[in-house]
């Protein structure tokens, strides 16, 4: 006992120095310093059992060296394990199945690690799965599950891109700061629901109202005065880039680089045949469909919707026929930002977390959706978003490496522009 305490005290005393010596690479593991690589002398093979949120303790992890010798360590309460090695070569890591928690097995029996230089750390993730999981899910089931995921992503993208497309249609502006409005929705959800403890529905409604208000305010203090000054569209687009940069770093400043959640508890899951889906996703999809239908109805059937389409078609002609274009544009900004906020909130609920750059990651998908459907057409954006969502989720099923699933969507956009530059639903004469 005494020895352990002394060792612990020593480790705690030494830890800061060791962390300093490895300059920047090890600050995260300051509490349990298990293995720190020394330049040209040792390397580390380390990882965590389970996830950071739910570590798995007490698993015996076995390392097999290139010469066949074995070492074993047991994971601590934080699930971390590590080995120190002094030679380069191909190592294998496995775990003793008897020490795994009941009902779990390793996805892969062993994981290969190639230590190609000393002085570095190498990760080896031993993935666990429940024993009744069958790896033989049929291709059809996989496709159905991915299609549902794709539709879910597509609907969320559609919420944001309809607004982006309407703004483009009525003002000609490609709004790069739209992504930050999506992030804002999630961040506000975090503030209202997680921090202030409001009911999710009430908080969600407040988020949408707040985001819509920011849209109204933006047009009031920024975009309308700039239009009046006669600032060119290119210049305005660069203003949106500046706004986007400023907002991104403001989020980082206020929340930090971490991921925050709107609701704390883990989502409940339902299974319908081959499809596994969280309850939040079902509700999010339902809300998206209802809201998109409402927007579509408003555009087609109401007076103000017709006015919006008229401005989108030809602002000068619309103004000449007595439509108050400024009012329409103000309304478009308000609605578009509200929709973007809703999209961000639902996105944060569906993927269970939002980060300062979450919006930024889907910005290009939004642009791809809008361009694919035809710049400036609201229904084109809807179609484009669904296609992009499906492509992103389905491309890994058809053999595209997972790293490239966003790239696939962008590639399709570029290819489509070659053959049909006006987009799927755009009119040819819109292209200059």
């Amino acid at each position, binding site marked *: 006992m005494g020895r352990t305490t002394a060792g612990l005290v020593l480790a705690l005393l030494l830890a800061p120095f060791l962390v300093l010596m490895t300059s920047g690479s090890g600050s995260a593991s300051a509490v349990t310093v298990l293995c720190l690589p020394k330049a040209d002398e040792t390397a580390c093979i380390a990882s965590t059992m389970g996830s950071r949120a739910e570590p798995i303790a007490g698993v015996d992890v076995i390392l097999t060296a290139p010469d066949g010798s074995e070492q074993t360590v047991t994971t601590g309460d934080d699930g971390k394990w590590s080995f120190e090695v002094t030679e380069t070569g191909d190592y294998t890591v496995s775990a003793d199945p008897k020490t795994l928690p009941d009902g779990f097995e390793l996805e892969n029996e062993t994981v290969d690690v190639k230590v190609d230089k000393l002085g570095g750390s190498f990760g080896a993730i031993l993935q666990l799965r429940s024993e009744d999981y069958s790896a033989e899910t049929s291709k059809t089931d996989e496709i159905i599950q991915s299609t549902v995921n794709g539709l879910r992503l597509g609907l969320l993208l559609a919420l944001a891109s309809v607004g982006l497309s309407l703004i483009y249609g009525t003002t000609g502006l490609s709004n790069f700061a739209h992504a930050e409005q999506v992030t804002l929705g999630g961040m506000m959800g975090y503030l209202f629901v997680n921090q202030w403890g409001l009911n999710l529905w009430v908080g969600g409604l407040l988020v949408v109202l707040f985001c819509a208000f920011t849209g109204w305010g933006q047009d009031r203090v920024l975009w309308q005065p700039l239009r009046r000054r006669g600032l060119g569209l*290119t210049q305005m687009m660069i203003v949106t880039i*500046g706004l*986007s*940069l400023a907002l*991104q770093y*403001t989020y980082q*400043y206020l929340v930090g680089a971490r991921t925050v959640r709107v609701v704390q508890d883990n989502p409940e899951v339902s299974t319908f045949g081959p499809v596994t889906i969280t309850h939040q996703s079902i509700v999010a999809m339902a809300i998206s469909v209802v809201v998109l239908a409402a927007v579509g109805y408003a555009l087609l059937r109401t007076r103000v919707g017709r006015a919006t389409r008229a401005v989108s078609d030809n602002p000068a002609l619309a103004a000449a026929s007595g439509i108050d274009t400024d009012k329409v544009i103000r309304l478009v900004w308000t609605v578009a930002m509200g929709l973007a906020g809703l999209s961000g909130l639902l996105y944060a609920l569906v993927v269970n977390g939002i980060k300062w750059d979450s919006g930024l990651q889907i910005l290009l998908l939004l642009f791809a959706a809008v361009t694919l459907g035809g710049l400036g057409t609201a229904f084109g954006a809807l179609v484009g978003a669904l296609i992009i969502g499906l492509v992103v989720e389905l491309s890994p099923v058809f053999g595209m490496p997972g*790293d490239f699933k966003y790239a696939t969507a962008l590639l399709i956009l570029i290819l489509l522009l070659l053959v049909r530059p006006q987009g799927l639903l755009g009119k040819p004469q819109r292209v200059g």
Partner: protein
Amino acid sequence: MDNLQLILNAMVREAVSPQTAAVAIAVIGLNIHFGFTGLLNMGQAGFMLLGAYGMGITVWQGLPFALGILFGFGAALVFALVLGVPTLKLRGDYLAIVTISAAEIIRYVGRSSLLTDFTGSAQGIPGSQYTGPFRDLSFFPSGSLTLLPFNYHDVADGAVWVRLLGWAITIGAVAALVYLLRSGDRFSGVARNGLVVLLTVFTVLLVLFLFPLNYQWTGVSGWWVRFVAWSLVAVCCFVVYLLVRSPWGRLLRGIREDEDAIRSLGKNVFAIKMQALIIGGLFGALGGMVYVLASSVQPDSMGRSLTFFCYTALLLGGAATIFGPVLGTIMFYVGRVFIQQGAQVYVPDSIMNTQEAAWFSYIVVGIALMLLVIFRPQGVLGDKRELRFDV
């Protein structure tokens, strides 16, 4: 005073760093796209990344350095062709959306773990793997050098008044230089050019007198890479000067102002735009190569943000000018360091820690970009009449 000296030192180090020179080269390329031709290229970082990968991977795989440079340029050339063909006949927004998407695709591919053996995935390629041949080219001696050896310490023991006076004269010299560069029509000829050169040399010497810099001659990030980087900046400026004075350069401006007018003169607008896209992209690739010579090839260091910073620098210095990109880039990086260091030194840690100071400096960058475009679209050196175009 000591704090101020600390901040100013950091600013000067940032101003002469090879990264600043590299971005300046990329911004010179962007100036050909955006400033002179009116092409909205949002993927300049993609060109840079291609140049860096072309050089880094080739040398890493054991091929000659010269071949690496060639591959870097080749990749950028192909990239420009691929992007230009579908979009240059369309309205400007399409080029913007396609270039930004394509640059992101390059980054995703570079990050992908599938190509770890070539690109080093998200970790990138460490500089030690490919900068050797470049350092071997150095004809500088070994050891280190302080520029200037004669500095403010030698005058009245570096008293406060010496430094204050020196700073005041520096600011005056820079203001005079900007005034000279802006007075294009009124005051021209050999006298003006001579005066500009003289003033530039004087300002640089004065800055080095006030802020002596000590680096190794050749080390990983020594004088050699700085010398090469800034020489390349000078060469690029000269090339652009020759290009835009040529008949071809006049066509570029013509396309920017009125594409149809140029077309009605029987010129092939598409071909000229494509040439501009390629040449600007090659500058971008060169910038990317220089960028990684003193660091490592990291896909995430050349993402969208870098393109946006390039635009900020370009607009700050003045688009459609020769020296605007260089001045703008230096001002951008020096200004950011000023904000960051200033916030760090003068604002207590309880209000703003180091990390937050960095974020704060980027918030200021974003707001500055907005204000710049709204209130002074011509930047420091530009001409407002040249920036009324709409793509």
